[in-house]
């Protein structure tokens, strides 16, 4: 049996870093923290994962970028972000005032970009984790690379070489036949933890115009709808590794958080919830304060 009372408040050790508690916020659902800090005390979080960052600035996809589906949210933001230089110049300085561990979410077009981003950020030494987004389904070719275990192993290995003491979290894609092939690949590459799950690839049509609702046509499905799939994957990965697992996908309340702990997660990230219920968010964060 998982000791839930303990787990809910336990610091989480990943690689050389001990994160103060297991309630983190997920990439793409916090931007770079500034807006949330107006309504939430970031210092109470176990970690905050920044919006996926690329080497060059990206303007992202044209709108519409969002649509609600039953108990789900379909998004195709297209990784709008200021690029690693913009991050360092405009985003990280603001976060210095908080003690919350900042985890960078990195989206490369190919292996070298992951390495370059880490190298550039390493000079700044403010971040407490690199989460490699190996799974962004919205970006051209993004799908195919991340579904290949060999590529996953290789990119993790290369990043580990330049990451120094900063933990490397592999956020593998759930849109695959066998999730454990990818988690094993990441482990073989030397990942310090596995983050799962990212969004499921989905699509919705406007039945009047008969066009896809998202300008990007396909998007990533998040929210409660995907929780059973996320729980299953965390469970499966837990059977095959002793690495820390960072669980996410559709968490809306304490029950859902506990379900992830039971399935095998060491800590969780809240994503879509941040958009819809700050009260719940605070309540989960409060529970994590020992």
């Amino acid at each position, binding site marked *: 049996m998982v000791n839930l009372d303990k787990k809910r408040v336990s610091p989480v050790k990943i690689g050389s870093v001990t994160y103060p508690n297991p309630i983190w916020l997920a990439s793409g*659902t916090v931007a770079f923290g500034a*807006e949330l800090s107006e309504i939430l005390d970031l210092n109470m979080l176990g970690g905050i994962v920044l919006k996926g960052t690329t080497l060059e600035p990206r303007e992202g996809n044209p709108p519409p970028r969002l649509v609600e589906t039953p108990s789900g949210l379909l998004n195709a933001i297209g990784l709008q972000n200021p690029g690693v230089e913009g991050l360092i110049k405009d985003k990280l300085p603001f976060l210095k005032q908080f003690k919350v561990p900042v985890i960078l979410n990195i989206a490369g077009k190919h292996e070298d970009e992951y390495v370059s981003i880490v190298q550039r950020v390493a000079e700044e030494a403010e971040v407490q984790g690199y989460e490699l987004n190996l799974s962004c389904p919205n970006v051209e070719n993004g799908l195919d690379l991340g579904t290949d275990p060999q590529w996953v192993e290789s990119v993790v290995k290369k990043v580990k070489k330049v990451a120094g003491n900063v933990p490397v979290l592999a956020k593998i894609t759930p849109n695959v036949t066998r999730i454990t092939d990818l988690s094993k690949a990441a482990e073989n590459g030397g990942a310090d933890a596995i983050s799962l799950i990212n969004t499921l690839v989905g699509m919705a049509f406007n039945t009047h115009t008969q066009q896809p609702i998202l300008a990007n046509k396909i998007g990533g499905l998040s929210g409660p709808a995907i929780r059973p799939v996320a729980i299953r994957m965390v469970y499966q990965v837990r059977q095959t590794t002793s690495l820390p697992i960072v669980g996410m996908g559709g968490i809306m309340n304490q029950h859902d958080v506990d379900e992830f702990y039971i399935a095998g997660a060491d800590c969780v990230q809240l994503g879509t919830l941040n958009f*819809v219920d700050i009260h719940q968010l605070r309540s989960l964060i409060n529970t994590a304060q020992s």
Partner: protein
Amino acid sequence: MFTQEIVTVTENKPVAEGYFKLSFNAPELAKNYDPIQFVNVKVGSGTEFLLRKPFSIYDHTDTDISILFKIYGKGTERLSQYKTGDSLDILGPLGTGVVPPKDNVPTALIVGGVGIGSVKALALKMPKQFDLFYGVRNQGEVVEKQEWSELANTVFMCSDDGSCGEKGVVSTLFQKQASAYKKIYVCGPHAMLKAVYDVCPETIESFFITEEYMACGFGICMGCVIKTTSGYKRICKEGPVFKGSEIIW
């Protein structure tokens, strides 16, 4: 500064065909919002609707805020069923509001349909130098006609079927008199915004109140963007008001 509040509905009444005005008790908010700001409302229970739905702040009293909405889909349908005493979960005030112009330049508010819901707060705080151009589908859609005729210098009406004011669209109605104005605020469906922009002389300072599907409403999801001369901007954060010259149409 915005907050999430559980508020109590004080009134929810039909004000035109398919239009409702819903008021709720929120004294702090009533004191501290700027025109064109909006609230993001949780409709229904559980995950009946996952996302909040954004509505402009229409009007306020000392203690209450009201929103004006049109039944569009299932969410607004459900919202129309709320009754006095029901509680409602709201997030706000959101968006960058407008500081009402103090200068006495000739100003027009140009609205289409439910766009009227976004500009009343502005109208209330403006000196009475503005005219209202108000386009509707038909007479049944007109909201608070009497009040608007008191708020505005002149109200110019038009409707698709001619049942109310001139027959035609509001951009055409405005075009005829465009030269009389130095500043305009425009609110309505995107096609109407564009039509007004297209007929608007460059000498006029124009502000457009834009809309896009929203998830968070306060800038963290990057979902609600509009293309501007300086890249995609968030309607919920930098907007919802943009200058006509800024928008890439």
